[in-house]
């Protein structure tokens, strides 16, 4: 994998969240899920900027939904993970597992 193909931490979060939520995840839903699961509270702008970057890399794809009254008559942009996105997640997980192998955090001291 070239340097630019590695996932950043927040890209990793967003991709995993889309996978958790299934096809049709959208900005507000992704933001709320990241907040609920990790306790980290990202801003909506960061979520959209990351989604745009992931789409440009071909890791996710998007389509436009119908406008709803609950959104002030505005449409949603839905996202789904692509095959490249799934393999990027697998590679990231393998890399983390290799790094963690043989390291015991329980006995670690600083």
């Amino acid at each position, binding site marked *: 994998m070239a340097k630019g193909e590695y996932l950043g931490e927040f890209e990793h979060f967003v991709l995993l969240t889309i996978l958790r939520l299934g096809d049709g995840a*959208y*900005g*507000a839903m992704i*933001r*709320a899920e990241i907040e609920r699961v990790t306790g980290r509270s990202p*801003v*909506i*702008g*960061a979520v*959209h*900027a990351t989604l*745009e*970057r992931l789409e440009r890399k071909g890791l996710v794809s998007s389509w436009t939904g119908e*406008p709803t009254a*609950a*959104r*002030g008559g*505005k*449409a*949603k*942009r839905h996202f789904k993970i692509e095959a490249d996105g799934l393999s990027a997640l697998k590679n990231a997980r393998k890399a983390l597992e290799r790094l963690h192998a043989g390291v015991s955090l329980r006995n670690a001291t600083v």
Partner: protein
Amino acid sequence: MSPPALAQALVAAVTPTNDYEFVSGDLHEEYLRIMYLSGAKVANRWYWAQVLLSIPSLLSYSRSNKSALRHIGVALIALIVLAAMVGVVLVIDTVFQADPIPSWVWFCVNWTDALIFGAILARLVRTDGVRVAFSAALFLVLCFVTPAVAGNPHSQAPLLAWILLWGVIPAMCIGAGLYQAIRCRIDSVN
């Protein structure tokens, strides 16, 4: 109930045109949820925090497939327009140095200047004019504010001067927005 109008205008100014509907829709949806759970005051505070903290992220990307060269071109145009804008103000300042003009005239001159240059910038960049005008105006204001604050932490600049300076941002955005609205109207007539 709807989110604060000024914050919504800020979202419209900084979001790429193609993404505005989705970003503002997402914010609106969460705003309503928080309002029902915690009340309008908490929801308004949440909305403002989201918008202000999102500005760097929203300004940093664009969905259109424009080359890096075009982005550099837009940045150069913005800088030239800003230099022209500062130049006009300096010329007026020099002309009226001997006989100081009243502050309200000074406000009109500066903000009209910003309005016109906002429209010129929107004409030059063609797409995302308000967004580019916002970035350019913010850059200009920070160019003045940063040295003033860094040089003197207890800066005693009069309040009117700060209002005059920060007012350049909405004035340039309004200029760019007006140009875009007029162009849309002309295009729809044709």
